[in-house]
């Protein structure tokens, strides 16, 4: 290729060349072309189906025929708020909150190490360690946990070898959190939820901590803050958007899950299981839809509360 001689080069020609010039002059055309397909997907298929679902919750079921009556009514919501169903909601929300808090506590040191200290190969190892469990099937992982937690499982065996069976039994005899074995207790459900959703907490917290300049920690120490004070006054506020982002995952995923509590835990229902039961065997689509509205509403309040508490101030 020869070196061009003129100051202004001729057009490249062809469709690609013409398009390149056109897009350069009208960048918005390119933006529109890029955005329209995903927006159609998001608007129609994604949100559309969600609104169809919401609409279902305002219909009701005819008690005699078992068919859905397509009239707008709040009857289904009245049914949703009966004591048995409120029990299910409360149980699920408490579990989601417990899982979220525990995930944040476990994730923070891991994320902090990865963001501050891990370099090169150790960082790659960190990502591998966090992501590896996500590459295997969710169902297999949950069943693996059932084997770990079962009465004949490895955990019981370890306790036995350590002569600590009495400790485990004392724990299992506690009300609510206990049970016949870990695999049929709320503790078991909690542990498996925590295991399965933990990566979704670690990654956003790590990303948030990575953006905190190291010299802010030094500046805080320089101004007299002990490591604990620095954590409370600098690290935590700056990592908060990451913690909130992670908690949105752990909280909402726990609210909606129906497989883990079915395989591991007491037979008492969670929201996901209630949805599954009502849309399946019971054929009560409106009530199932009303149940799915609950996590959406709870998440809405959650985000509103987080914003009011200033969780996003550092964004």
């Amino acid at each position, binding site marked *: 290729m020869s070196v061009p001689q003129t100051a202004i080069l001729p057009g490249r020609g062809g469709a690609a060349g013409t398009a390149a010039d056109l897009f350069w002059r009208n960048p918005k055309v390119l933006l529109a072309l890029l955005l329209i397909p995903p927006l159609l997907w998001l608007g129609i298929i994604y949100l559309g189906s969600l609104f169809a679902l919401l609409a279902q919750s305002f219909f009701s079921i005819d008690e005699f025929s078992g068919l859905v009556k397509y009239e707008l009514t709040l009857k289904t919501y009245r049914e949703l708020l009966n004591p048995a169903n409120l029990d299910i909601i409360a149980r699920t929300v408490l579990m989601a909150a417990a899982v979220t808090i525990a995930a944040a506590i476990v994730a923070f040191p891991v994320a902090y190490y990865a963001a501050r200290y891990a370099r090169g190969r150790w960082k790659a190892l960190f990502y591998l360690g966090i992501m590896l469990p996500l590459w295997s099937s969710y169902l297999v992982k949950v069943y693996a946990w059932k084997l770990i937690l079962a009465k004949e499982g490895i955990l019981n065996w370890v306790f036995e070898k350590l002569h600590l069976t009495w400790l485990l039994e004392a724990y299992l005899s506690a009300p609510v959190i206990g049970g016949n074995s870990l695999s049929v207790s709320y503790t078991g459900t909690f542990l498996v939820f925590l295991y399965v959703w933990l990566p979704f907490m670690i990654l956003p917290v790590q990303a948030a901590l990575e953006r905190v300049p190291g*010299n802010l920690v030094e500046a805080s120490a320089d101004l007299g803050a*002990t490591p604990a004070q620095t954590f409370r006054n600098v690290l935590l506020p*700056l990592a908060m958007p990451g913690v909130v982002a992670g908690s949105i995952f752990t909280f909402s995923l726990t609210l909606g899950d129906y497989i883990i509590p079915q395989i591991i835990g007491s037979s008492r229902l969670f929201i996901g299981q209630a949805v599954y039961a009502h849309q399946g065997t019971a054929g009560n689509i409106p009530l199932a839809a009303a149940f799915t509205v609950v996590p959406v509403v709870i998440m809405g309040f959650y985000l509103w509360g987080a914003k009011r508490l200033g969780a996003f101030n550092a964004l």
Partner: protein
Amino acid sequence: MQTAVLFSRVSRHFGNVRAVDEVDLDVAEGEFFAMLGPSGSGKTTCLRLIAGFEQPTAGHIEIFGQTAEGVPPYRRNVNTVFQDYALFPHLSVLDNVAYGLMIRGVGKRERLQEAETALELVRLPGYGDRRPSQLSGGQRQRVALARALVNKPKVLLLDEPLGALDLKLREQMQEELKALQRSLGITFIFVTHDQGEALSMADRVAVFNDGRIMQVGTPQDIYQRPRSRFVADFVGASNVLPPDFSGSRNWASLRPEAIRLVSSDGRPARVLSRNYLGGQTRLSLEAGGQRLNMLAASGDDLPADGANVRIDWSPDDLHLMEDGE
């Protein structure tokens, strides 16, 4: 006068790298002390050793007579103005300034009042409600200064405090820093790679190279009587002359402004190029195989490029260096 900071044979090694190598240093109370050197010369590591962010590999550090090794930064009554200011982005300017007081448990009303006073001291009254991101570089610099000074530290450390500012603002801040230091009487130790800044602001200057201190002295000492070729070279672009040129046993330094153009006698030289600097013009000369820089008052009668001239200097201006092998 008491010694504010004392280093005796302090080393800080990172693996094989000797960032600071057997440094002896003493800074007097109330002194404005500059650590000058090229990047990687160990001056910032020395500052971090005083702040407590680094611990010495060997040697002994005292701050106001008290041993500093093993003492964490938060137990040192020493504050730092960081190079890029390190203001907390999630706090308002006022809360940034009040941070140290808040940590020490000073009540809210009192600490905000003191923070406002500190903001007035750095001539930013009423800026407390803003976020650091809403301030210009010069304003952030002042906030960082206020945030450190509000704690009334025994020693204030400044890490290239003016590096990110433009020339005019830098000169203004130099004046202000000097005035502040005089009025507060706090020991200031500041790190810079800018010899002009070090010479104009400091009471004493330590010149660093390769983790060692090459020379400590008043700006006049350092400038007029450099002890080694490195110091002569680094501080003020001196001409460094080999023994055979100066006609003595040692290497010598000759300030550019000490060279005069003369009409007779002197040494023959040739003008290689001219650099107009405003009030002065720098002439690049070649004399007897040696390149020389000279500064002359700008004027119409300066010789043209390539002209043959004669130059001279007074023997007093030729400074022989002790450490000039």
